[in-house]
């Protein structure tokens, strides 16, 4: 594949190196002269100097025949513009954009620029997974399908521990899909009794998280025990 990577920061430089090792043809475009000179010592002719939001710079890099354009500069507007032009003007099949400020993700979505990758978002997800005080772990967002899958760990004081699944008043638009108990997973039936330490997975419509939190949390304060 011929891949154009824009922005030779840490992300772009390492990405270009990995792609070259996998035998792809790569052009890395960098618009800071000093950074370009540094990177060029290693990547030689695979790095090109210029502002990739200038159309002639993209054309000089051969965007017309590129299979993929990856924009990973530190500037969200630049990444959006480069990907938009790549896809809509030069009809590049595959684009990937980096989101620096997660609050800008909505703009990437609005302009139809996807997939977009945000390191901050990824770390936040990890944090939610590693810090059980958050209670409820976001496993997956199916944006197109408008569904989420979350994981909850039941503590001793959870309002549902010891109760029959069939008796739970699950909020509308949510469904228990599996229970992990002592390392084994199974699909609960109406007669399954939930136990302390169970990890339950639920699929739900976006925005139902808070209702589930109340149901599965300690009977008193509405949060979910970290177990």
């Amino acid at each position: 594949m011929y891949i154009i990577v824009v922005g030779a920061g840490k992300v772009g430089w390492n990405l270009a190196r990995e792609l070259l090792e996998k035998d792809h043809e790569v052009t890395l475009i960098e618009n800071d002269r000093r950074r370009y000179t540094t990177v060029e010592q290693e990547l030689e002719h695979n790095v090109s100097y210029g502002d990739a939001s200038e159309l002639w710079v993209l054309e000089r890099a051969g965007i017309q025949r590129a299979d993929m354009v990856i924009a990973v500069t530190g500037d969200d507007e630049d990444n959006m513009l480069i990907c938009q032009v790549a896809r809509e003007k030069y009809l590049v099949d595959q684009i990937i954009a980096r989101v620096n400020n997660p609050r800008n993700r909505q703009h990437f979505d609005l302009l139809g620029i996807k997939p977009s990758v945000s390191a901050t978002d990824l770390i936040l997800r990890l944090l939610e997974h590693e810090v059980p005080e958050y209670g409820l772990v976001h496993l997956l967002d199916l944006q197109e399908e408008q569904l989420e899958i979350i994981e909850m760990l039941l503590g001793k004081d959870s309002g549902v521990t010891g109760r029959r699944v069939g008796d739970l008043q699950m909020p509308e638009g949510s469904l228990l899909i599996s229970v992990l108990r002592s390392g084994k997973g199974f699909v609960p039936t109406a007669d399954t009794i939930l136990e302390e330490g169970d990890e339950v997975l639920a699929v739900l419509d976006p925005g139902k998280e808070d209702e589930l939190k109340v149901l599965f949390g300690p009977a008193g304060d509405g949060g979910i025990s970290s177990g």
Partner: protein
Amino acid sequence: MFILIVGCGRVGSSVARAMLREGHTVSALDEDPESHARLEVGLEKSWEDLGGQFTVGAGLEAEALEAAGIDQADVFIASTDGDNTNIIISQIAQRRYDVPTVIARVLDPLRAEWYARQGLQTVCPTRVAIDMLETAVRDSTGRGNG
């Protein structure tokens, strides 16, 4: 009309003053609080006393755009010093906030031309300068010997 101008440099602030003088409601948004002073150049009263609105914030922040009144805007002008910023926030104004008239200042003639073909109204000062210079050269008389 309600006119929202993002980017209060020489261009943005001049247009803002002119529109206010013509009786429009004008709201200016800029990242730099100091740019407020540029709005008041040549004015006898303060920008606010004359009915102008000024918000500090970036054009990409939804909260800032909303605080500056984008929901009521009839006209949106993107005149920050970044071409890409202007192009992106103009599309946000068009698609997300349905502003009827959106104008982006784009210095790069190639980008201005392509986005104009995609339906974005662009103003390209560089193109204007190129045309004027070419015309001036063509109209020049020379030394009269050839």
